[in-house]
């Protein structure tokens, strides 16, 4: 049964939502019953259908509650299947949502979208500034997941979300892969999905770390320098990946860097393998730099248990910069990436998409 709030005006309603701690601190679209109904309808599911419990508060995520988050975030009904898939992905136990929401680390769920839904549920940007402002679907979908984590999961700063600082991606963190221009098979195929399936992959990521590299067209071994510098970006010894080990991490190659590696005969799998051999530190160095997490072992500590933990995708504009996104690398399942199919078959076309 709905427990409705009332207010004299839209402005009053917004202030009330802020006062009750139901926003992310920015203005939201007030989730009126008609707006929520329309958003829930777009999912093609019953509003009271239960998706699962969201930690740390163990709030029950129903289609209707997820629709509330989507409305508040500024989504249009077209975005709803992606929001729903993202919520399902973080509820998957492998994602360790409860622990991830409660940790002192800055981790935030990064939503990566592959397949035809990038267009039918967006457009979700994979180009210039895809992780920055100016892309409505990216901004709204990522924000909807965060609002669900706040209002259904109960993650609030300082009382249940204990991130010491957090990072701006905790407002919204969503992009698509540029599959059309990538020389590699898209990311979701490495998880066993078909290329034409629409998939959300959610991983708990730090803020993106820029990786600068300029290729030398006269040097056929130039690509090795790119691999070396990407590996440093992935596992600088200040990251949890390097110290705790066993968590995943992501490289977002820009088109030029992707071309350098493709021209060298590498593919997604062999790039991960090459990086894996480079992502290690000596135990001696770790003892010197981070003694609280050192051991009496000798030899090297590899940040990853295997190359499959290093995710590779292509996005962004053309230029010198790729991105490395290290992760929290803790929790019972090491906060593993979680994939979920975007159910566009169930999507219900809304005759009037205008939000009242």
């Amino acid at each position, binding site marked *: 049964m709905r427990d409705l709030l009332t207010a004299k005006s839209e402005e009053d309603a917004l202030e009330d939502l802020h006062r009750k701690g139901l926003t992310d601190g920015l203005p939201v679209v007030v989730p009126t019953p008609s707006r929520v109904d329309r958003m829930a309808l777009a999912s093609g599911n019953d509003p009271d259908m239960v998706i699962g419990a969201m*930690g*740390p*508060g*163990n709030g029950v995520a129903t289609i209707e509650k997820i629709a509330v988050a989507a409305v508040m975030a500024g989504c249009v009904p077209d975005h709803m299947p992606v929001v729903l898939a993202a919520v399902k992905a973080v509820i998957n136990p492998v994602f360790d949502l*409860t622990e991830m929401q*409660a940790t002192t680390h800055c981790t935030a769920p990064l939503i990566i979208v592959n397949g035809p839904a990038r267009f039918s549920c967006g457009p979700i940007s994979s180009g210039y500034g895809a992780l920055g402002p100016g892309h409505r679907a990216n901004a709204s979908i990522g924000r909807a997941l965060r609002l669900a984590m706040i209002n259904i999961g*109960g993650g609030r700063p*300082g*009382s*249940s979300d*204990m991130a010491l600082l957090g990072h701006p991606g905790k407002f919204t963190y969503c992009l698509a892969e540029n599959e059309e221009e990538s020389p590699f098979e898209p990311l979701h195929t490495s998880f066993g999905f078909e290329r034409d399936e629409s998939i959300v992959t959610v991983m708990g990521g730090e803020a993106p770390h820029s990786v600068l590299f300029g290729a030398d067209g006269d040097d056929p071994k130039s690509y090795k320098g790119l691999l070396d510098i990407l590996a440093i970006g992935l596992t600088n010894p200040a990251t949890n990946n390097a110290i705790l080990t066993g968590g995943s991490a992501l490289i977002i190659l820009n088109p030029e860097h992707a071309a350098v590696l493709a021209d060298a005969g590498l593919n997604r799998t062999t790039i991960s393998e090459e990086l894996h051999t480079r992502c290690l530190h000596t135990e001696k160095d770790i003892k010197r730099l981070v003694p*609280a997490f050192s051991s009496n072992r000798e030899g090297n500590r590899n940040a990853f248990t295997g190359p499959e933990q290093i995710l590779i995708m292509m996005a962004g504009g053309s230029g010198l910069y790729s991105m490395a996104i290290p992760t929290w690398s803790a929790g019972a399942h090491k906060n593993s990436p979680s994939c979920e199919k975007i159910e566009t078959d169930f999507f219900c076309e809304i005759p009037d998409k205008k939000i009242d």
Partner: protein
Amino acid sequence: MRDGINIAKLNIPAVALVTEEFWPQGDFVSVSLGMPEIPRVKLPHPVAGSGTENMRMIAKSVATQVIASLDTNA
């Protein structure tokens, strides 16, 4: 906090050691997991990284409370 509750749910006497900074989070977690009365002992913050001698001193200062909580819990 969560570990303490999970242990208590196994009918094993448990007391959660929570630093003062994390006390509000403890309130939230204990309610959300349905065990708001889980015995808790408050520690100063931070404990981690504060040095062996300091940790011994903290342990000594709360040992009686911890044992009393476990006795009550049993």
